[in-house]
């Protein structure tokens, strides 16, 4: 089973992102389950949504505590809640930000100190999803771009499946705008991947050296 946890704020389409991801996986012939954290979702409040993807039927109903991938729709959450909690040591992180992965992880490390875990080099990705959403959709809803980035980063689902899921969900005009945002995010992450490998490695050492040791002291 592959488990994804998505963090964001109410209004960013986090729950919808988990649902669309499950539809994309389902369309590829896999079993998938998506569910929200069942909070009292309000605009701006921290929101969590979950998605499981497996080749076998999924019976488990517990929230995802040990994700294989984490998507962070709002990087300001990094300083407020432990969004990386329980991440599988080989797990992926996809952040919505204009900044480079290294800067961001470094900043997060400064902000939340010992709670940052060592991230595996090559598994940290950044996509400017809000900017892409503004360009294509005209509203700060980064979810479609994040899913495009997620498809590129993990290869778990194809961009085409993500786009089909978007088209299935929204009226044509809104759908096509989001489809375009997802596509640009996909290519952005894809193109930046080699670069991100280096940056993520730096981030890893930075975080490990400066924050991990005190945390365990």
């Amino acid at each position, binding site marked *: 089973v592959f488990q994804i946890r998505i963090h964001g704020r109410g209004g960013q389409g986090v729950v919808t992102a988990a*649902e669309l991801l499950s539809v994309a996986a389902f*369309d590829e012939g896999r079993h998938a389950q998506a569910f929200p954290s*069942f909070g009292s979702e309000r605009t701006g409040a921290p929101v969590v949504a979950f998605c499981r993807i497996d080749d076998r039927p999924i019976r*488990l*109903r*517990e929230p995802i505590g040990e994700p294989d991938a984490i998507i962070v729709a709002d990087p300001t959450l990094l300083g407020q809640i432990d969004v990386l909690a329980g991440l599988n040591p080989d797990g992926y992180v996809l952040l919505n930000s204009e900044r480079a992965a290294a800067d961001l992880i470094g900043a997060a490390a400064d902000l939340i100190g010992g709670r940052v875990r060592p991230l595996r080099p090559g598994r940290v990705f950044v996509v400017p999803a809000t900017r892409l959403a503004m360009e294509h959709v005209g509203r700060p809803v980064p979810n479609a771009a994040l899913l495009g980035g997620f498809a590129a980063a993990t290869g778990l689902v194809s961009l085409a499946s993500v786009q089909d899921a978007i088209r299935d969900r929204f009226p044509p005009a809104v759908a096509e705008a989001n489809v375009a945002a997802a596509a640009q995010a996909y290519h952005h992450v894809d193109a930046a991947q080699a670069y991100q490998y280096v940056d993520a490695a730096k981030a890893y050492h930075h975080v490990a050296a400066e924050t991990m040791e005190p945390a365990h002291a």
Partner: protein
Amino acid sequence: MRRQIEGSRAVAETVALCRPEVICAYPISPQTHIVEALSELVKSGRLTPCEYVNVESEFAAMSVAIGASATGARAYTATASQGLLYMVEALYNAAGLGLPIVMTVANRAIGAPINIWNDHSDSMSQRDSGWIQLYAQTNQEAADLHIQAFRLAEDLSTPVMVCMDGFVLTHAYEAVDLSTQEQVDGYLPRFEPRQVLDPAEPVSIGAMVGPEAFMEVRYLAHLNQLRALERIPELAGEFATAFGRTSGGLVSPYRIDGADTVVVALGSVLGTVQDTVDELRDQGVRIGALGITTFRPFPADAIRAALANADRVIVLEKAFAVGVGGIVSADVRTALTGPELPLYTVVAGLGGRPITRQSLRGLFVNATVGRLEPLTFLDLQRELVG
């Protein structure tokens, strides 16, 4: 057709295939998506003829359902939590009048303190109302149970509650094999009421009954519910033949052959329980699970048979009777005969507290070695209660 769909949507689409003629709705989380989806289906003309009635309260919702059903219309509504409590007076009337209303309960805790999350306190509080209660393990079963519920309700002239875990199921996207109109029409005939309120031929229903016959009315209601214990497995069997999948029935055993320990539970938690059973079986622990799909009427014989070879029983409950303990446990205890089996009541998941494999694993292992209290509150945070 299999679709990746929200549980509420799957239920709404399926209810629409059952051709309800009156739907009355008052929104309350986590049930709201169901009636919202149905309102769209009515407005768009996909569900027709159907009168969709927005009411001012849950009491009105059940009252409208009663009125509609009494005139011979197939009536549906949905609610949860405090909403269910607000319709209690009318719930008993629906049952007493023998009106075949079907209602979804999107299970949610009851306040105070206010809590919108899932547990079974709402429907458990109405276990003695005379309604049949069915509990769904998955969204597939939630959808399928509604088709069976209309048939059962109309066969026996009794209302049926389909209980599905709020949020955990109602808001979960998963694959559901949605039935076709042809399949549902083949399984669920038109509603042929035995008696209707009709201005052209006036009758009174629900007139006062005094001490000379009231007990007999109640006794007959009991007999009627007991008939459901035979009818439910028949309807589940017919459903499996017609739809090609298994849903419903009285109980659903999982790996109980050779199980010394059997975990009894209701609803969606059974998925997590089954995963935990598999893990422990792999480690040589002889454990199985028993889902109670039909809670009212209580399938005592089926439960007794399923537990016949168990050495101990754990009843995992998402509700409890304050000052007493388990609700389901007490009923399971009455089903057991012969030497007293150790029976552990575990209250879990109240107010939406997640029930995890990790917690269940520890719990089940403790039970197998006799290290479990008769009444346990799973993952109770001792530091919060002093």
